């Protein structure tokens, strides 16, 4: 292993790590909000909303994320990092929507009926009764989606987003020490994904206990 790669390029690797973290965090938050909204749309008692939600999910999740990132970059007047984050959000939200919808569907129907009979509106019943129960069920699949999101953020590299993968590309191009450079890049990704993975496991156990 050529550790001089690591020491001489630490600045650019850390810069890349920072951008990867920021892009992942924003996309995580954005896709969680957008995904929840889409899931609710898909099961709302209003047909046009259902269609809209279904159309979005089916359309987006059947396009490669690389293509979506490219579209976001070329269609809008954004820099690589912004476009990449938007692309990731658009893509991931479709999967989040499916995970959350599955969670909502697994809450027994009687819950909604009981909540509505106490006088709550559909929106209130969803927010106060159904979603809190659904969230526990969807934690594991959501965790997987978020880990995927961090890894998919490496696609920022193809639109010059300046992320960890992009820095790795430049370092390997400059030094020709291709293999070792990507080993270090992989380790940096592990630093992000392993704690995420452990965190999801912990949350899962805690929520299970609170039942």
């Amino acid at each position, binding site marked *: 292993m050529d550790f001089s790669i690591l020491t001489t390029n630490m600045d650019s690797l850390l810069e890349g790590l920072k951008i990867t973290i920021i892009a992942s965090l924003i996309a995580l938050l954005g896709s969680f909000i957008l995904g929840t909204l889409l899931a609710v749309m898909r099961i709302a008692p209003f047909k046009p909303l259902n269609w809209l939600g279904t159309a979005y999910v089916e359309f987006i999740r059947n396009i490669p994320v690389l293509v979506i990132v490219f579209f976001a*970059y*070329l269609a809008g007047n954004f820099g*690589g990092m912004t476009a990449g984050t938007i692309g990731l959000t658009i893509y991931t939200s479709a999967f989040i929507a499916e995970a959350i919808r599955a969670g909502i569907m697994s809450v027994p129907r009687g819950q909604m009926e009981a909540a509505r009979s106490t006088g709550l509106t559909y929106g209130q019943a969803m927010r106060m009764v159904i979603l809190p129960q659904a969230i526990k069920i969807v934690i594991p699949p959501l965790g997987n989606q978020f880990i995927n999101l961090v890894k998919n953020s490496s696609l920022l590299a193809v*639109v*010059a987003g300046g992320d960890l993968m*992009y820095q790795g590309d430049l370092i390997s*191009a400059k030094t020709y020490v291709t293999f070792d450079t990507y*080993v270090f890049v992989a380790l940096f990704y592990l630093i992000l994904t392993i704690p995420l993975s452990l965190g999801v496991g912990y949350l899962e156990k805690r929520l299970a206990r609170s039942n």
Partner: protein
Amino acid sequence: MFKTKKFVTMALVTILAALFLAGCGGDKASNESSKDVLAQIKEDKKIVFGVKHDTRLFGLKNPSTGEVEGFDIDLSKALAEEIFGKDVKPEFVEVTSKTRVGLLNNGKVDAVVATMTITEERKKEVDFTDVYFDAGQSLLVKKGSKIQSIEDLKKGTTVLAVKGSTSSINIREKAPETTVLEFENYAEAFTALKAGKGDALTTDDSILYGMAEEDPSYELVGGTFTEEPYGIAVKKGNKELVDELNKALKSLKDSGKYDEIKDKWIKN
């Protein structure tokens, strides 16, 4: 108790994974110098050339025929025939500026004929033949752009380049104020230029001419500001193959075949 055990297991797995990856790196070096490339070519009766698939005039995959076409390809075929006659079949594999050295070193390609500039830095990694084409770095801009030469690349301007090319290193030296964005290949860099993601695209003039030919609303400005002698790269330590290629290159030049191929592709 149980929890601690689980954490330890997890940590161990992580460390093992890291060691495994590190181990792969070590193995590679010992496999590298295994076999003489020239002998292998003769044994397999085929020579694998690494060429560009996205570079008009030099190596471009024609979508309607599926064939790769260009100066580099025709030259490779002529060289293979000159050295080995009809016995050895030339095959072509796509390389990019980013992948070409790696593919040479792991034996996936025997020789790289892919608009590759001979540099001192690269000579440490691979062996080069004599120069087979003289190019120079230049700028491509939209017609009517305020950028007319390298001096116009001041703070606030953005130049697009390709990862792993000498041009991305040169432009940082010659115009340190400008922002450089690097893409995977020339097609993507040119698409980004067309989408207004930068003020200019920089690489060798020979490649830029191909882009200007494809879309005449773009033009080269400011002449060339570097010299980019292209060489054929082979894996380090294969002097015999380099000698054979040099001999063949010389006889192609002497017989006029080289000029014939060059005139077919490069008009300027």
